[in-house]
């Protein structure tokens, strides 16, 4: 199965933005800015654009499959996946935000 790209339907509710912010497929510069700045809330621990430092215990997120990132975040959120911190942070993001963030990181260079 192909790794799914952004589905416009999943984005319609993203913080009041118009749908279609397919980051890798030509979001408007304004939409791209909002998406980057939402994803940047992960960068403190996971690196700018999801590229964690070499040897880091924190995972790099750049270039991971979107589906995998969404699945992991939802598992943290539900508590299905145990964690030290991520189960507490994941609960701070809506499912729509998780979709946006995951699509952004999936489109970044590893």
């Amino acid at each position: 199965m192909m790794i799914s790209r952004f589905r416009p339907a999943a984005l319609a509710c993203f913080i009041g933005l118009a749908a279609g912010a397919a980051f890798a497929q030509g979001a408007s510069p304004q939409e791209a800015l909002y998406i980057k700045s939402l994803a940047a809330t992960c960068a403190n621990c996971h690196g700018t654009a999801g590229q964690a430092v070499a040897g880091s215990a924190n995972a790099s997120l750049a270039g991971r499959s979107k589906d995998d990132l969404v699945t992991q975040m939802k598992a943290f959120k539900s508590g299905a996946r145990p964690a030290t911190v991520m189960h507490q942070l994941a609960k701070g993001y809506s499912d729509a935000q998780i979709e946006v963030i995951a699509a952004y990181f999936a489109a970044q260079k590893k």
Partner: protein
Amino acid sequence: MKSQHISRRGVLHSAAALSLLGLTGCATTSIPQRAKVVVVGGGYGGATAAKYVRWLSDYKIDVVLIEPQEAFISCPISNLVLSGVKQMADITTPYSALSKRHGVTVVKDIAKSIDTRAKTVTLGGGATIGYDKLIVSPGIDLQYDTIEGLRAANASGQILQAWKAGPETVALRRQLEAMPDGGVFAITIPEAPYRCPPGPYERASVVAGYLKANKPRSKVLILDANQDVTSKGPLFKRVWNEQYKGILEYRAQHKVTAVDAKAGVIKFDVQEDVKAQVLNVLPAMRAGAIAVQTGLNNLGSNRWCGVNYLNFESTVAKDVHVLGDSIQIAPAMPKSGHMANSHGKVAAAAIVAELSGWPINPAPMLTNTCYSFIDPKMAIHVASVHEYVAAEKTFKTVAGSGGVSTGPTELEGVYALSWASNIWADSLS
């Protein structure tokens, strides 16, 4: 734990962040007469904002960063320098990647004055730089004069704070090394808000760990002006009871009024005097001097700077954005390095939007993750996610998110150090 997948990828694909580091000097060339964005202060807030304005604008907006220090020295992890686990080099990051990799013009100087009408910053060296947008991120100033005798005791090197990591961190470590077995290390904490709420308790804990291993007859005294431990209280208290019983003692409601450096005595408003061999007296804090001098400190008894949380623009001066520990905090927003980095990103995105003629993101988000070591290896944390609530014009924690550790673990100690290397790269590389 199902993390092997992530860990493997983390190790394999964490590439480039450090590749351009390790070279020296930021080789300030000429100082420009003006820049679209000028940033005052290269700490967690200012450095992050400088980098992110460049990165988020696809390197179209020029940025000047004014910072007097040669390199960034991190307050987080600096308590491990005090306990002898880390060295200063471990917590120091050069500014060179900001200039070489991101094209920030790094000017090694102090901002001497700001003219918010003319929109200029004048440097200690005499140069003046005009700006369209100014970011002020000067951290905190210690209010020495709120405690009688403290300014002189600091100047003479007898009573140190080490609340800005740097030479005082090294000097306080030396005092601890020189303290005889059986001595007392006393740390005093001002009333909240102050920089890094759990920092004093972490410091007391790791120093207790050092003394327990090396000078077992010694003691640690925490003298807290607050009613109770202000952060991670139940966790710290458990650690103190289980690991440091008989070594570390916590006393609430101890507000320092004066110090006698020669006698090694701390005086309080109500409680009896305390004598100690190493005194670490933390006075009240307020917004950094340049913010105060510019009149941005309009809130909290004129100690902190009011901002519009949507873009961190000062409520006093147009096109001046204030970040980090200097601001009047929103509910449950700690004065932490992680939070300052988060402020920097929200402000940078807002500034890029404004300078591009776009609306500001109406729903910015912030995170905070703050680790505290309790001994050389184990750490605990507090974490939170904050969303902008337009109706109330402030940030609030997202309901149901955030929390603290169940207890100290070595795994969290590993994550704490990993957090540090990643946030240093995110802010400076």
